């Protein structure tokens, strides 16, 4: 059978979801943000909640997420996405509200907001993208940067005495009684993307059942910040990030 006979609309097995817009993403080649955006968009399409979903974008690379997902968006001040999401959800309880935050946003300047939003048990979903670096501003050290990891502000590697320990924020969140579902996922292989999709779906379903906050951390890469190729970044992530940030479900109530 010729390739031309296979490439027909009736044979489509996988295509870009309509929830994603046609804009070309501004992310660097191989950025995990693209995969996560796509996964969230696919779940929104599957659950048919496109007109009922409100996203709150952070400050960071994903600040422009509203260009790519065709849903309602708000853009919060740095780290304040959970506060804005709280307001949106309380004013419109029938909507599905999620925040999409990076580690510089959620784990650093926004630690107070995320802790209290999760402790109050707001019925929102939080997507926390952890790539151990400030990507947008040029690869500076973040609270989640691993010990010994070289960044532009720690050129000799992160030193515990000087900079403290990397912050495992998801483990902290899991202890709060307000959260119902806390998990850490990744998106580097097809299998991991499928798992992530299940987690995203479960998180959205939990908010509909008013179970409390659902928190999904995604360990991602920053090829430009780490100064590696996209494929090498994934290998580096598996080797260095996964031992410190182990994948899995931490809480499911």
């Amino acid at each position, binding site marked *: 059978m010729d390739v031309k006979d296979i490439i027909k609309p009736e044979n489509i*097995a996988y295509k870009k979801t309509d929830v994603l817009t046609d804009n070309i993403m501004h992310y660097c080649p191989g950025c995990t943000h693209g995969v996560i955006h796509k996964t969230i968009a696919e779940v929104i399409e599957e659950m048919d909640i496109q007109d009922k979903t409100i996203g709150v974008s952070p400050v960071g690379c994903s600040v422009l997420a509203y260009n790519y997902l065709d849903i309602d968006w708000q853009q919060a001040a740095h780290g304040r996405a959970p506060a804005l999401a709280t307001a949106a959800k309380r004013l419109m309880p029938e909507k599905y509200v999620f925040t999409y935050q990076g580690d510089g946003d959620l784990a650093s300047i926004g630690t107070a907001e995320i802790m209290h939003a999760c402790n109050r048990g707001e019925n929102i979903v939080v997507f926390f993208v952890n790539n151990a670096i400030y990507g947008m501003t040029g690869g500076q050290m973040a609270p989640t940067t691993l010990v010994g990891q070289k960044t532009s502000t720690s050129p000799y590697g992160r030193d515990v005495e000087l900079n403290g320990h990397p912050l495992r924020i998801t483990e902290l969140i899991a202890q709060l009684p307000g959260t119902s579902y806390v998990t850490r996922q990744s998106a580097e292989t097809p299998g991991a993307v499928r798992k992530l999709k299940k987690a995203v779906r479960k998180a959205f379903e939990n908010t509909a059942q008013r179970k409390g906050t659902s928190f999904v951390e995604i360990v991602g890469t920053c090829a430009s910040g780490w100064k590696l190729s996209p494929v090498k970044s994934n290998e580096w992530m598996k080797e260095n990030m996964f031992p410190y940030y182990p994948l899995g479900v931490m809480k499911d109530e």
Partner: protein
Amino acid sequence: MAKIKGAITVDTEGCKGCGLCVVACPTNVIGLAREVNGKGYNYAYMEQADKCIGCSSCGLVCPDSVITVYKVKMNA
């Protein structure tokens, strides 16, 4: 025995040549082209078209969602 054949199409202008699909493909179908697109990226293409099984692995890991996967079942 029914045999499964697949094919992919790539939106070459949207592709950034990151190569994640190349390593995700279980049958080594995808390669990066020697030519570049309008932005200067070596875009992904089907190098060994006859090996494709339409598993959608490339589509799942593509950060820019430029890959469409087609799949047919053939009765040989």
